[in-house]
């Protein structure tokens, strides 16, 4: 079993197996995304309060979900890397961070754009936006630590530990920000989620969520492949690969 895991998690094996997956994930992401956008932008009915402007949630909400999801993936793979010394897991964690940070950034920008018509200002200290901003800071800290340590192995472990500490903290941060928000702004800020969402809105939202997941899968594979090539640049399998070119 252990041998089996080690074989399948070797960067060389991963590199040779992942190429076709990228194509499939990209195509699937594109199709789901286009269909989701079509349903979201043209088929779903306008909101009775917010008119057309609410349609940005089909980007905003899945992006926010993804930013949290990717942080979890990052922390779990970092833990696997630290505990079982699986290099591929470290590569996945390192490859995930910039993607997760981008999704967090996207969620913040779309949130601000949506805020303008809703609240009359691009930025209000809404609980979710604030949490999202802190999540972005956690990503940036992870990436800064990762790049500050020269030795690759320690960089992976150190930043991995930081990601795990971050995961323990996320619920606490989330809870405290939520609580802070209700104190200071109370019910004046409309909540993003609607308890009962129209099914025509829910379907494109879920489609977009699936599309983003597929997009992430494709992107993380591309980035992890690059990490594998870069980190193993002096190993035999990469050299053989280069000689074949």
């Amino acid at each position, binding site marked *: 079993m252990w041998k089996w895991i080690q074989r399948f998690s070797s960067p060389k094996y991963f590199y040779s197996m992942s190429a076709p997956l990228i194509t499939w994930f990209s195509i699937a992401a594109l199709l789901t995304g286009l269909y989701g956008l079509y349903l979201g932008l043209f088929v779903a009915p306008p909101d009775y309060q917010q008119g057309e402007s609410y349609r940005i949630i089909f980007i905003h909400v899945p992006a926010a979900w993804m930013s949290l999801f990717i942080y979890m993936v990052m922390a779990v793979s970092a833990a696997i890397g630290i505990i079982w010394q699986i290099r591929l897991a470290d590569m996945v964690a390192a490859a995930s961070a910039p993607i997760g940070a981008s999704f967090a950034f996207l969620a913040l920008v779309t949130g601000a754009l949506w805020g303008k018509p809703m609240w009359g200002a691009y930025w209000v200290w809404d609980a979710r936006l604030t949490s999202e901003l802190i999540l972005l800071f956690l990503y940036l*800290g992870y990436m800064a630590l990762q790049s*500050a340590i020269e030795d690759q192995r320690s960089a992976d*472990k150190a930043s991995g*530990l*930081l990601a795990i500490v971050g995961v323990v903290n996320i619920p*606490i941060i989330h*809870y*405290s920000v939520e609580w802070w928000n209700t104190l200071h702004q109370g019910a004046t800020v409309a909540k993003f989620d609607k308890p009962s969402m129209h099914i025509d809105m829910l379907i494109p939202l879920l489609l977009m969520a699936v599309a983003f997941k597929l997009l992430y899968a494709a992107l993380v594979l591309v980035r992890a492949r690059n990490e594998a090539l870069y980190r193993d640049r002096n190993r035999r399998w990469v050299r053989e690969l280069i000689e074949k070119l």
Partner: protein
Amino acid sequence: MLKAYYHLLVRDLRLALRNRHELANPLIFFVLVVTLFPLAVTPTSEALRAMAPGVIWVSALLAVLLSLDRLFKQDYDDGSLDQLMLSPNPLMILVLAKVSAHWLLTGLPLVIIAPLLGLFMSLPSEAVTVLIYSLLLGTPVLSLVGAIGVSLTVAVNRGGVLLSLIILPLYIPILIFGANAVDVASDGLPVTGQLLFLGAVLALALSLAPLATSVALRITAAR
């Protein structure tokens, strides 16, 4: 094991006392930063009172952050950290000793000087009491969580800014609840909830942070 804790604590305290001039620096910094705010606005007592909890807590955060350096830097530079890690005693106990010393040398003085700052910022006396309680519960968490960050960055050249980048987001819950407790208290409302939250976070940090710090130290030493 208790002996190991005690010996290391005493060693760190003794080292700090031999450098008395450095000892006061975080404290002076704390008072200085708080002093800057009234100078930057119109210092009416209402305005000051409104911003006091936030100003004092943010300054406390920064003061602790700047002092974190002395937690492991010296020991790392002169090799004593290696000897600590080669101790037959659990590394967690030693980490806890060092964090305790750090808190006694930076957190506790902040708590003691806080009433003076309450006076500066025209806080009512009930709020000052709560300020002391909240700092008493919150500053140990700052030391504990900070220890994780320092042990990850102690080997990085010019790791100071990096340290604040990775640690400050983790300090946010303490800031929110600490400042809010003082804020609410100056309106004369009960603050048991906030203080309980701070206590719960302290218990959590006390049980997990030394573990995370010792893992982080091993990662740093392995370089």
